């Protein structure tokens, strides 16, 4: 099973890519852990940049459901979300 992890602009800048596929993520927690592993020595930077980020699956914030325990399906998109304002 494979899901797409989509990063915020700042995370993507730190890693050099805005999205990547991860295999074997059964839950959102797994996907976040695997994403963190991608950052290798920059893991602390990952922690800093995601401290204020929410996580969505296919556009829906997981905080409205089962949170990090949300189960994933093949082809899902897991995104980090920063609050913002504009108009």
């Amino acid at each position: 099973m494979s899901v797409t992890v989509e990063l915020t602009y700042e995370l993507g800048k730190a890693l050099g890519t805005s999205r990547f596929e991860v295999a074997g993520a059964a839950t959102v927690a797994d996907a976040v852990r695997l994403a963190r592993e991608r950052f290798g020595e920059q893991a602390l930077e990952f922690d800093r940049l995601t401290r204020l980020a929410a996580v969505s699956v296919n556009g829906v914030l997981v905080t409205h459901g089962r949170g990090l325990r949300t189960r994933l399906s093949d082809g899902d998109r897991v995104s980090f979300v920063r609050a913002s304002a504009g108009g």
Partner: protein
Amino acid sequence: MIRGYAGRVLDVDLAARTFTFGPLDEETARLYLGGKGYGARLLYDLTPAGIDPLGPANPLIFATGPLNGSVAPQSNRFAVVCKSPLTGAIGNAACGGSFAYGLKRAGVDVLVVRHQSASPVRLEIDGDRSHVAFIDASDLWGKGTGETQAILGRKKHHAVIGPAGEHQVLFAGIVSDERIAARTGVGAVMGSKRLKAVTAGGSRRLEMDDERAFKEYTKWLGAMFRRHPVLGDRLKRVGTSGIVSTTNPRNILPTRNFKYGHHPDALNVSGEFMADHALTGVKSSCIHCPVTCGRDVEIEGVGRVKGPEYETVALLGTNLDVPDLTRVAEWNHLADELGMDTISLGAVLGFAMELRERGLLDAGVRFGDPAGVSDLIRDIARRNGLGNDLADGVRRMSEKYGGRPYAMHVKGLELSAYDPRGSYAQGVEYATTNRGGCHVQGASMYMESTGPLTINPHSLHLKADLPVVMQNLACAINSMVLCIFTTYGMLPGFIHRLSPSSRTHRALTAVFEHSGPLLRLALGAKVAPVLWFEKWLTYITGERFTAGHLQEIGERIFTLERMYNLREGLTAADDTLPDRMLFEPTFPGTTSGHPLHLLLPRYYALRGWDRQGVPTARTLKRLHVSV
């Protein structure tokens, strides 16, 4: 006269070339404040039902409010009100820049422009001499908005139209400095009057009831705003287009004519990308505004131009499947010079692209391909060839060529850049807002799906209540006249610094989501001025304002606008969303269409309207709305 107002209404007749300075009606000012509220009252009273929006009977009303001319942050905006040629309903648009300041310095609260000139003309208002000069504008006709203002003098305060307004493009706007009163086609009405520009100035000073208290409070508030995570930081760093980073991962970013809410390359038009790759400076663009959400960008082949706003990068970028900042900035600059609303422009281009994809019309443009777009924008502005059809907006296009289910408008006004399938309260707002599918006549999406609180946008909780209180507040704000961005300060800084997965954050979200009656009660209370809206009004006018007063005034304005629309023949059937929003999912298996039918009955009841969406006699009496 109440403090904060100049006390004068300037009435100009372009056909007779006459003008009169009359008194501002104090009772109307008390009931409707100014701006779009006062303008709506005037429009209702001055015109019968059924007038031709582009005919001489449609007045063009420029209105300021009691906060204009002060140094309150984000307070130099004016409203333009008329019958909309795009929607046939009430039309209004707000604009920053500096014209509001010029008008108030001229000692004019409201400018009413009537009838039509036989030839291009511009007005120069000299407030100190109480004089209006009618000046031939043949030499300016055909010129862009920037060039026109440069010729008229950058140190003066202007409101001008470009070629789109002259050719009565139904989504043409009115420009002041680099800002535009964009929506509902107010520029087409100005063009129909052959009025190229209005310049206003004078040396009148705003009289306040308690200037010392105003200054002390404003100094404190300015410091608070500077520390605020949105007003003092994020908007400065990444501008409004930073919001792409929120709307895209939440599936509410218009993509390919709103078919999808997500684009894989959306970050290429984000504010963060702009800051890293093209930004040459930040600026306020509006006089006396410390927020500096405006951008300057350097675009190869174009030069240093205004950076596009969020709505523009969405509607002209991802919505056309062209997430290319260079192209979007180029088209944005073109639209500004020609004097057009980039929201409606992006929507009409996206609609034309989908018509091509479905074999219904070939306007020479296709999704994912920037070729031909610049030329088509120029053709729209001058109504050349097929551009003439696109210049009439999405609704009329769908009536001529088909595609009604995916014609993305409400009441004829093209939707702004928040997909309501992922933002239910915003969908209710789109459906019910009197000027049509617009986001700044309430901005529920901030409290629901873009701001830091992140309530569940797919539940029904609060989704009828929130639009009511937000629309009321926005009506009041747009009548003071303030920038809607001041509402961002309502969520204190500590909320922005909470982790969304923290217990505190989740608890606050849960409380907010179930706070409907409490929210209405709190905002309806007439206890004491608490927020800056009420405090500024109280210090300036000398009259006591509270949150409850603002909700009441806002509700009154909203209800009067509703009565105007009903008089024009609109019905509850117009309180709807495009079929695509009601019936198509944005992402298979997750987001279905918007449940508007479940929310509208409660919305009507909260507003004191009957089941047909008509304000009851009791509601009109309670709000002192005379019709």
